C-alpha cells in the first residue's frame, strides 16, 4: 500500500475552500463532582475527501472525546460544548436539530471503536446488526437487508460470509469482529469514517490487515478517514497528515512527511524518539518522562512545561498559541524553531 495512492488534493473534493469536515476551536468539558474537566480545549483540525488524518496523543489527551463530539454521541450532561464549531460540508453540526443530526450520524459520518467485542451487541447476530443500517435508514425489508449484509461481509473479506451471517459476535475472532464493525460503519457509504484505535486490541499481523482493509475501502470510496491511534508505525504508512494532541489541545499539526522529517514540538519529538525502543505495544508513550497533566489542575502557561526539555522561564507563565510554521503546519511551542533545528539537550 503506497502513501501516494491515498493522497488526494483538497481540490478534488469540489468543495472550494471549505474542507469536508472542519473542527474549529472545539471545547468540550465534563461537569463532575470533582469539578469541571476540560477534556478538549480549543481543538481545530480539518479533513478532505480521500484524506487520512491521524490523531496522535497520550491516553487522556482528548482524542476520543473530540471524535465523540463530531459524532454527537457524547452524553450531555455530563458533557457540554461551551464553544466551537464542527462544520460538515459547511454546515455546523452543533447547530443542527437532534433530528437532523441523527440523519448525519452513521449515514454520512460513521465511527468504529477500539474493542469490537464490546462494541457489538452480544445478543444479536452480526447479520442482524449490519442489516439494521439498511432496514432503519433505507427502509429495506429483512431479506434484502440481510443480502446486503452478506455483500458487505464479503467486501470486508470475511470468509464464508453467507454461512456466518447468522453467527453472533462472540463466535468470531478479534480481527473478524473488527471487520464486522467496519462493514457496519461503511454500510451506507459514509463521507467521513472515524476509526478510534481500531487495531489496538488486535495482534500485530491482524493490525496490519485491518489497516490495509481500511486504506483499500477508503481508496474505493474516497471517504475522509480520521484515524485515532497510539501507533506511530501505522501512521507513517497510511496518514496524509497528523494532529498531535496533548491535554485537550492540538500541539502540532502537519503533513505526515514533515513531522517525520523534523517535528516542531518537543512532545511530538518525544513521541517519535520513543518509537525504536518499543518492544511492547502501548508502552511507547511512557518513554516521555513524567505524567500527563491532571485536567482538573492544569499547569500554568504551556501545559507541557513540567515535562519539556526545551522549557524556558516564559513557558511557565505564557501559554503558547498555535504558531503557523508554513502553509499546512502549526506548532504550539514558543521555541518551535529550536525544536525544528535540533536537539539542545
Amino acid at each position: 500500500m503506497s502513501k501516494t495512492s491515498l493522497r488526494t488534493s483538497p481540490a478534488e473534493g469540489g468543495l472550494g475552500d471549505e474542507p469536508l469536515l472542519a473542527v474549529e476551536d472545539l471545547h468540550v468539558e465534563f461537569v463532575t463532582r470533582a469539578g469541571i474537566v476540560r477534556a478538549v480545549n480549543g481543538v481545530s483540525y480539518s479533513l478532505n475527501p480521500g484524506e487520512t488524518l491521524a490523531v496522535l496523543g497520550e491516553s487522556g489527551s482528548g482524542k476520543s472525546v473530540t471524535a465523540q463530539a463530531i459524532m454527537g454521541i457524547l452524553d450531555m450532561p455530563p458533557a457540554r460544548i461551551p464553544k466551537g464549531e464542527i462544520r460538515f460540508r459547511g454546515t455546523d453540526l452543533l447547530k443542527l436539530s437532534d433530528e437532523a443530526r441523527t440523519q448525519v450520524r452513521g449515514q454520512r459520518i460513521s465511527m468504529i471503536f477500539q474493542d469490537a467485542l464490546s462494541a457489538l451487541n452480544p445478543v444479536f447476530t452480526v447479520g442482524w446488526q449490519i442489516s439494521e443500517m439498511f432496514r432503519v435508514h433505507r427502509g429495506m425489508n429483512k431479506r434484502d437487508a440481510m443480502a446486503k449484509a452478506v455483500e458487505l461481509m464479503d467486501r470486508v473479506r470475511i470468509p464464508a460470509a453467507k454461512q456466518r451471517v447468522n453467527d453472533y459476535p462472540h463466535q468470531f475472532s478479534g480481527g473478524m469482529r473488527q471487520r464486522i464493525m467496519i462493514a457496519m460503519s461503511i454500510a451506507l457509504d459514509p463521507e467521513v469514517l472515524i476509526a478510534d484505535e481500531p487495531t489496538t486490541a488486535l495482534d500485530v499481523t491482524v493490525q496490519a490487515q485491518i489497516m490495509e482493509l481500511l486504506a483499500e475501502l477508503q481508496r474505493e470510496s474516497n471517504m475522509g478517514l480520521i484515524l485515532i491511534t497510539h501507533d506511530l508505525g501505522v501512521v507513517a504508512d497510511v496518514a496524509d497528515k497528523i494532529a498531535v494532541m496533548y491535554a485537550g489541545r492540538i500541539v502540532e499539526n502537519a503533513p505526515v512527511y514533515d513531522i517525520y522529517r523534523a517535528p516542531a514540538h518537543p512532545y511530538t519529538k518525544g513521541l517519535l524518539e520513543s518509537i525504536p525502543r518499543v518492544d511492547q505495544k502501548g508502552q511507547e508513550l511512557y518513554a516521555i518522562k513524567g505524567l500527563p497533566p491532571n485536567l482538573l489542575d492544569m499547569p500554568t502557561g504551556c501545559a507541557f512545561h513540567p515535562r519539556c526539555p526545551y522549557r524556558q522561564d516564559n513557558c511557565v507563565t505564557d501559554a503558547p498559541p498555535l504558531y503557523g510554521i508554513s502553509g499546512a503546519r502549526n506548532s504550539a511551542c514558543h521555541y518551535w524553531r529550536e525544536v525544528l533545528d535540533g536537539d539542545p539537550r
Partner: protein
Amino acid sequence: MGRYIIRRLIQAVPVLLGATLFIFAIVFALPGDPIAALAGEKRQDPNIVAIIRDQYHLNDPLLLQYWYYISGIIFRGDFGKTFAGVPVTQLLAGKLQVTLNLALVALVLEAVIGVVLGLWAALRRGRATDTAILASTLLLISIPTLVSGFVLQLWLGVWLKQVTGTEIFPIAGTTQGIKSYLLPGFVLAGVSIAYLTRLTRTSLVETLRSDYIRTATAKGLSRRRVIGRHGLRNALIPLVTYLGADLGNLMGGAVITETIFNLPGIGNQLYQGVYLREQPIVVGIVTILVLVYIVANLVVDLMYAVLDPRIRYE
C-alpha cells in the same frame, strides 16, 4: 437441548435427596412425641400408641425411617400418610394448587410492576420520578408482610367495599377465582417488587452505559430504538434469573399471606405440619418446594440461553 434438560434433572436428584434428608432429620430431632401431640389432652391407650408407632416406623433409626419414606416416593409416588390416615398426596393436591396460584399471581405482579417501575426510574435517572420510585421501594422493603397484609386487607378490602358497595378485592378465601388472589398476591410480592424494581433500574442503567449502546447511537438510530431494541434485551437477562429464583421464595413466603387471607394453601398446611410433628406432611411439602425450585431454575437456565446467545447448553 433435550439431553441438557435430562442431565440437569439427573443433577437435581442429589439435591432433592439431600434437602429431604435434612428436613427429615430436623423434624425427627424436634422435641416432643408426635403421637402424644396427636391425642392432645386425652389419655392414650399404650397398646394403640405402640401400634401407631410401629405402623409409622417411629421406633426405627432415622436413616431407616428416611429410607422407608423416600423409597415410597421414588417407587410408588407415595408421599406417606398423615397420622390421621389421609394420604399426603391427597391432602396436598388442592392446597398446592392454591399456593401455586398465589405464587404465580405474585410473580406476574412482581414482574410487571417491578420491571415497569425499574425501567421508568432508569429512564428518569436522577430526576424526581426516579427518587420517588427509589424511596417507595425502600418503604416497601421495610414494611413487614404481616403489617402490609393487614393494612391492605383493611383499606382495599374492607374500606373500599364499604365506600363503593362492591367487593373489588376479596379479603379472604379463594371463591372468586383469580380476583381472590390479587390482594394476597400483591402483599406476597411486595418486597420482591421493591427488589426487582431496583435490580431493573440498575440493570438498564448499566446496560445503557455499555459500548454497544454507544455503537447503536453512532449508527444513527433513534433513542427509542437504541433503548428499546439494543438496551432492553440485554437489561432483561439478569432479571430472569432473579424472577426464577424468586418463585421458590414466594411459595415459601406464602405461609404468612395464606394465614392473613385465610387461603387453604400448603403454607397453612406446613405450619400445622410442623406444629403437629407430622413428618410426612412437612417433608412432603419441602420436597415439593425443592422440586419447584429445581424446575424454576431449569426454566431460568433455558430462558437464559434463549436471551443470551453467548450461553450454550453444554
